[in-house]
């Protein structure tokens, strides 16, 4: 049992920390938001140089052959910096689907371009009626000559507006919520019949509503065998949940640090407000919540590569419950203990609070995963 980072992992953490301290400050972030994509291409190029964009891919495909721990290190740093870049969309989700569902040929063709930063992927999966049910897919892919024709609507596609290619889930057979019959297809964002409406999300990142109307795809657009993609989707979403758990730890840690710092400096009634015991205890409650979340993020990281899908899914549900609840407590108290200043857009803490809120929403909030977990045999054997 070893909770420490290896030397290489520590190096990754340090260099990313330095890069983001330099280039990812809060002021920079606001500038980056107003760039065409809503995030920084220049920073993305630096991520590529650091090897971050190739982290989880096998070396023989052009990746670094790193595992979930490296992803955890990167995501926590992104959380601390409140990064805007499409790492989750392009590397964790998009890249994950290529890793778990792509053919050798697809991996060899795409991984080098993901890793060098020239290819931005997004995962177009969620649909309006589906909420958080991953099997709920109404978009269809119908045989069309040797290829496919794609029709449907995808919603809240993370970074879907700046993606070069979309990985689209679509039904090749069966009914709307059947587990069987789902395929994954690689689609050019600019293909004819694709319409995209991009918008900022409540945390200042970007997403898009995307429509597909008789989009013609060649046979090799399919990722893996069309019809049996759900396990790969579930697996990649589990990896994304582990990544989000790590990001949320970064987000919470900053909120907690800022709050403690504020308690030490803000004066009312002739003394620092941190001298009021009720606020001391509140800051301690926040710390307890943060550390519980950190532990669960580590657990999720460990379980991200678990082959037994049922065990893995239980772990991710549990992690999502913990980070959702911890995040709510830490976020709400961070605002509360800052008083009026916490409510302002000019001050950093509110932006962390908003990101934390959206992390809870992504792939289903704490309450959703609690129900899910309660339908299994749980974490402690009966």
């Amino acid at each position, binding site marked *: 049992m070893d909770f420490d980072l290896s030397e290489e992992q520590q190096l990754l953490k340090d260099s990313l920390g330095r890069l983001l301290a330099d280039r990812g400050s809060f002021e920079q972030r606001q500038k980056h938001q107003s760039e065409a994509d809503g995030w920084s291409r220049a920073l993305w190029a630096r991520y590529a140089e650091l090897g971050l964009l190739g982290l989880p891919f096998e070396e023989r495909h052009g990746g670094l052959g790193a595992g979930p721990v490296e992803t955890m290190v990167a995501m926590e740093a992104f959380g601390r910096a409140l990064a805007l870049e499409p790492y989750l969309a392009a590397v964790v989700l998009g890249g994950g689907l290529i890793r778990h569902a792509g053919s050798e040929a697809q991996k060899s063709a795409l991984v080098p371009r993901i890793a060098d930063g020239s290819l931005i992927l997004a995962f177009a999966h969620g649909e309006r009626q589906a909420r958080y049910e991953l099997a709920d897919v109404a978009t269809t892919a119908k045989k069309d000559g040797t290829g496919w024709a794609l029709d449907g609507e995808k919603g809240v596609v993370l970074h879907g507006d700046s993606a070069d290619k979309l990985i689209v889930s679509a039904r090749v057979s069966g009914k709307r919520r059947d587990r069987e019959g789902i395929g994954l297809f690689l689609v050019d964002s600019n293909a004819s019949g694709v319409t995209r409406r991009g918008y900022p999300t409540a945390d200042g990142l970007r997403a898009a509503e995307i429509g597909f109307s008789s989009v013609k795809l060649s046979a090799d657009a399919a990722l893996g065998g069309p019809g049996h993609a759900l396990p790969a989707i579930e697996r990649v979403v589990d990896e994304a949940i582990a990544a989000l758990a790590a990001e949320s730890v970064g987000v919470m840690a900053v909120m907690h640090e800022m709050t403690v710092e504020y308690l030490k400096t803000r004066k009312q009634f002739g003394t620092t407000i941190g001298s009021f015991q009720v606020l001391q205890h509140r800051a301690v409650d926040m710390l307890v919540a943060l550390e519980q979340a950190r532990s669960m993020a580590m657990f999720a990281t460990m379980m991200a590569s678990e082959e037994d899908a049922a065990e893995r899914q239980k772990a991710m549900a549990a992690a999502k419950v913990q980070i959702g609840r911890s995040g709510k407590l830490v976020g709400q108290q961070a605002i509360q203990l800052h008083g*009026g200043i916490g409510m302002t*857009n000019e001050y950093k803490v509110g932006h962390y609070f908003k990101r934390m809120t*959206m992390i809870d929403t992504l792939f289903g909030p704490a309450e959703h995963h609690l129900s899910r977990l309660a339908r299994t045999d749980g974490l402690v054997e009966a």
Partner: protein
Amino acid sequence: MDLRFTPEEIAFRDEVRAFFKASVPEVVRRKMRESRSLAKEDLVAWQRILHKRGWATPHWPVEWGGTGWSPTQQYLFMDEMQQAPAPPPLQFGVNMLGPVLIAFGNEKQKRHFLPRIANIDDWWCQGFSEPGSGSDLASLRTSARRDGDHYVVNGQKTWTTLAQYADWIFCLVRTNTQAKKQEGISFLLIDMKSKGVTVRPIVTIDGGREINEVFFDDVRVPVENLVGEENKGWDYAKFLLGNERVGIARVGVSKERIRRLKQLAALERDGDRPMIEDERFRERIAQVEVELKALEMTQLRVVAAERNRKDKRPDPASSILKIKGSEIQQAVTELALELVGPYAMPAPEEPDEFSNEPPIGPDWAGTVAPTYFNWRKTSIYGGSNEIQKNIIAKAILGL
């Protein structure tokens, strides 16, 4: 003990309910229901409708345009208004300054300002908080130095709600720097058009434009704008803040929000069934309903006790209303956030305006996350919940 309303009270409730049904402008009702912010014109138009009916200032003494209603009637009126839903008359004038002027202002001030407050001819804002003085309001530093028949005001107020619309601001200013901090404060009325007044907007985390900083740079204020006596402002402020807390439970607002939440939960589907049929979700709504019912009864107890109160000081139990009221309001915004699901995320520009672009996701989704963010304020303003607990610990528990 008979907790039922009398037949007369029920008849009264029906009367005000019918009035709200017929009189709240559709655009106001819709913006309220959809948690969109109201424009200045909306608020002015609505208050004038109320005023025309004689109901803009129901709790004022009859001689100054009040209705003479019993505390129960006052309560029913407010509850129905919140459930309509309709906004209250501008609280800074009607609930804060009005009662202060009635209690402590001179004849001339009353005659000039009160009718204008009732008809919202003047838009008032509240200049109490400063960057260094929030919970510890009495430490405020904005100064007013006497110079002939003027005060010269210098300093800064902050978090000033809707100062961007304001014609006037009532301020706490320091007129004596030597005295104990509570004893050197005065209550001053300042024309926002005066030379040296600058308003800078502060954008809130939900992107809203409701608060501001207000700067005073050698602003000359006629001494006739002093309310009551010099250096007695702290007493007036305490009186005002007590009144502020009374309406703050906002039981009717929460009722309306829960009603809407249930309606939306019947529409929003999870798989093959509406969210309202999700047992766990319904339980969590029910839990808030229980809390709200208890709060309503607590509020009614405070209302009933008002009849028998000798002194004019606010009931410390009103702090309970503030704490629970804000917690419930916030809990409802959390449930709405959960209900809307993934469509909590899109935040297209200008969520406050009705737009011609088709909505992203359900048409009610756009304001859900912003409202959750924004309503964190309810446990901060009007005396934070921590301060309310300090008040209860001291005034009720004697700790």
